[in-house]
């Protein structure tokens, strides 16, 4: 049974991306960590399509992973455009420079 190792690997990649997103302070690295979470989800989708719980293997997981890649590309373009804009405002990539809205 190969499904569980792949799902576990996807979960580990997602968690590592989450940890990186929470702990790093560089805006670019934070976006890179969201891409890492996407990698974990892609592994999950393809594994569930390849080793389904019921019935025959299908290709739907791969098709959904392709749509996910398209969404990731759109997200990267918009996110990096925002990062460039924020860098122009403050001259730094530190996420802490934008904490004016923080509730404290």
């Amino acid at each position, binding site marked *: 049974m190969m499904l569980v*190792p792949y799902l576990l690997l996807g979960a580990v990649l997602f968690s*590592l991306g989450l940890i990186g997103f929470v702990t790093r302070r560089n805006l670019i690295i934070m976006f890179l960590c969201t891409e*890492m979470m996407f990698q974990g989800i892609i*592994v999950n989708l393809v*594994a569930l399509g390849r080793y389904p719980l019921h019935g025959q293997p299908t290709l739907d997981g791969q098709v959904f992973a392709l749509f996910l890649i398209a969404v990731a590309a759109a997200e990267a373009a918009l996110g990096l455009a925002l990062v460039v804009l924020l860098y*122009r405002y403050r001259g730094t990539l*530190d996420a802490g420079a934008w904490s004016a809205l923080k509730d404290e």
Partner: protein
Amino acid sequence: MPSLLILSLVLGAIGLFLVMPGGRTGRARVGLVTLAAAGGALAAGLCAGQDGRGLFAGCALVALFAAVRVITHKRPVYSALYFVLLVVAVAALLLLMDAEFLAAALIIIYAGAILVTYIFVIMLAQQSRPAPYDAKAREPFWGCLAGFALLALLAVRLFSGTAAMPATVLAGTVEGVGTRLLTEYVIGIQLAGLLLLAALVGAIAIARRRPANEMLPEGDE
């Protein structure tokens, strides 16, 4: 849930906390050893007594090593390069799952297009020396604790009873994926094209806006 996996989760949490940027070099070295032990325990737990899992374990360990380096490296360019290694390892895993087309698409789109955009932006906003916000992580203890708590929850659920079933062969994925995309999911692919177009226009509209108090290091306009 096998005890080796619990051991590897605990070791991984401790090791990741130790290698987070901000600590001393000796601490990072101890953390790397701990992480290697965690990876070994994970590989042993997943492959114990099973044949044909060596390739999977190798690719998975490369992917995990690259992922840890992405979130702990102090230089953003190296983080991006380790992300390329992660994408290649994930593509190899997809090949093991007979998803040839998706593996090629992943490398072309992620390593070829998205990562190049990241490297452009990193170059654009490059600091002359390592920036202080890269050298120190924000709340590494609570971040690692929360992430590994989520991971432990997922792992416990994963190992709490799944039925074993034979894996059947899935042939001709390029043809199959193409047929699926252009028949069953044709609306979806049109929408994906629309989404990409909207993102393109939006990115241009956002990035060309000029702030009043521009603070670029060298005024190049």
